[in-house]
């Protein structure tokens, strides 16, 4: 045995302490954040109680205040749901494609995806407003509205391009790179032996995915999607530029072609200007708190999903 092996075994404990402290840091920050949000929003809970969640009035004028968060809660749910429904298949498609393409195309696609994941949301917003909106109105909204607008409530309203559907689509475009970038890494790290096994059984590419890649990586893919959902739920700038920003009862989502509002967009629209110590400010922070609870719910659901799906927890096959 070599004499100069490091005999210093304390470092293992040091390491344990470092990683534990780092992890607890997260816990502390989040608790602090929740406490802070709760105390800052206390006046609105005190004044309105739970009716804050089910009411839809919104008036910020001094002396006429009335605050209800329902439309924004619904707005967030609907936009994120539509965005996820569009983005997940696209993202996983891209991730699948990237892992099966020839080397050169693969490098190029990776580059593009990474590039796109890094474009600030504000640029997506500008693009959505200036480039996407006019095209979308002309080629999608107006034809659909003319055909179905009168009969189907989903497509009623004025096709303005500043509405729930436009915001959701741009939102999905934004989160596609995030989800596909992470999914790609997950899919790439599925052990090749797994794929060989499926390959040998005469599986088609799709079946290889179904049989060998998906079961192995599904927990990771759910994780990637949650990452995307996180971005969707919390996205502020681009949504604010595109969703039409209705408030109060007008923001209750009734049609895809109607202006809406999400929780983060109303905060973005009004937080900066809400006077200190006002009920308005505490209502906005209250919405922030709801958003937080929202995130918690999403995670509980995802957690249940993952636990159901997850059997391999670590690594591949044990010896």
């Amino acid at each position, binding site marked *: 045995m070599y004499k100069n092996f490091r005999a210093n075994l304390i470092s293992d404990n040091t390491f344990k302490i470092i990683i534990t402290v780092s992890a607890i840091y997260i816990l502390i920050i989040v608790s602090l954040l929740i406490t802070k949000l709760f105390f800052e929003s206390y006046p609105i809970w005190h004044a309105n109680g739970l009716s804050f969640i089910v009411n839809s009035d919104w008036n910020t004028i001094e002396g006429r205040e009335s605050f209800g968060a329902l439309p924004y809660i619904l707005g967030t749910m609907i936009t994120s749901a539509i965005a996820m429904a569009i983005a997940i298949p696209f993202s996983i498609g891209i991730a699948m494609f990237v892992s099966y393409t*020839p*080397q050169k195309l693969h490098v190029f696609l990776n580059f593009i995806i990474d590039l796109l994941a890094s474009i600030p949301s504000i640029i997506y917003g500008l693009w959505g407003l200036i480039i996407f909106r006019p095209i979308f109105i002309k080629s999608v909204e107006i034809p659909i509205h003319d055909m179905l607008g009168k009969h189907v409530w989903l497509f009623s309203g004025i096709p303005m391009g500043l509405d729930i559907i436009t915001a959701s689509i741009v939102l999905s475009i934004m989160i596609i790179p995030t989800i596909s970038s992470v999914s790609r890494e997950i899919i790439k790290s599925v*052990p*090749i*032996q*797994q*794929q*060989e*096994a*499926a*390959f*040998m*059984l*005469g*599986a*088609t590419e799709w*079946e290889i995915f179904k*049989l*060998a890649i998906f*079961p*192995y990586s599904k927990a990771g893919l759910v994780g990637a999607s949650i990452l995307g959902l996180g971005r969707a739920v919390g996205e502020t700038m681009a949504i604010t530029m595109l969703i039409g920003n209705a408030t109060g009862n007008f923001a209750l989502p009734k049609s895809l072609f109607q202006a809406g509002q999400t929780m983060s967009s109303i905060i973005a629209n009004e937080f900066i200007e809400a006077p200190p110590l006002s009920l308005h400010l505490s209502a906005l922070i209250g919405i922030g708190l709801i958003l937080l609870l929202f995130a918690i719910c999403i995670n509980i659901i995802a957690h249940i999903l993952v636990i159901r799906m997850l*059997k*391999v927890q670590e690594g*591949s*096959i*044990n*010896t």
Partner: protein
Amino acid sequence: MESYKLIAENITVYYNNVKSIKNVTMKFKTNTVTSLIGPSGCGKTSFLRCLNRMHDMNKKVRVTGKVIIDGSNLYLDTVNPILHRRKVGMVFQKPNPFPTMSIYDNVIAGLRLNGIKDKKILDDAVQTSLKLAYLWDEVNDNLKQPAIELSGGQQQRLCIARALAIKPEIIIMDEPSSALDPVSTQKIEETIMNLKKTLTIIIVTHNMQQAIRISDYTAFMYLGKLIEFDETKKLFTSPNHQLTAKYVKGFFG
């Protein structure tokens, strides 16, 4: 020509543009067992993987040559390798069961793909295949157990069962018994002898006794080249090439 189930012609394999297998040609007769022997790294695995276009998976590998199964060339662009792979079962050097699936699901994975849903057929297939692979007795009351909880040898036998379940016409095995104890090995050998009646078998082995026991033909490879391919008896008793003689003696001596 018709008596050959599988013909590999002029196979050359490049890894990152470096030749690893050089112009290998082998012909495998229907319902025979052929052993591939040779020192570690000589290209046995690489060659086997050509036989069902397994290299398609890896973009850094290039294969040239022909592989003709039942008269049609697997390497033509117009051919769908999936149709052929069904006929070719494969067992790898390292056991690779699907880790998320139970033992049962692992065995019938291939059948499920082909759209077979009838539970009775599936149950049957599981039982038959596991019995053929001599795993049945150890797992029959625990078929729902995750496959990764099996021991190494058990996993390997599970992989054999999985390959057998799709009823291939050719089966290629890369050192299937290297992780098995002698009893199982012997039984696997019996299985092979048994399967020979209906199947064409190609097997890589380091155990020359095994090669002698089970195979009709033996191929000796060295540094990516096929040195000698002959009837097993002939190759082991009076090889044509010095290299073969040396290698084979190296074992016996």
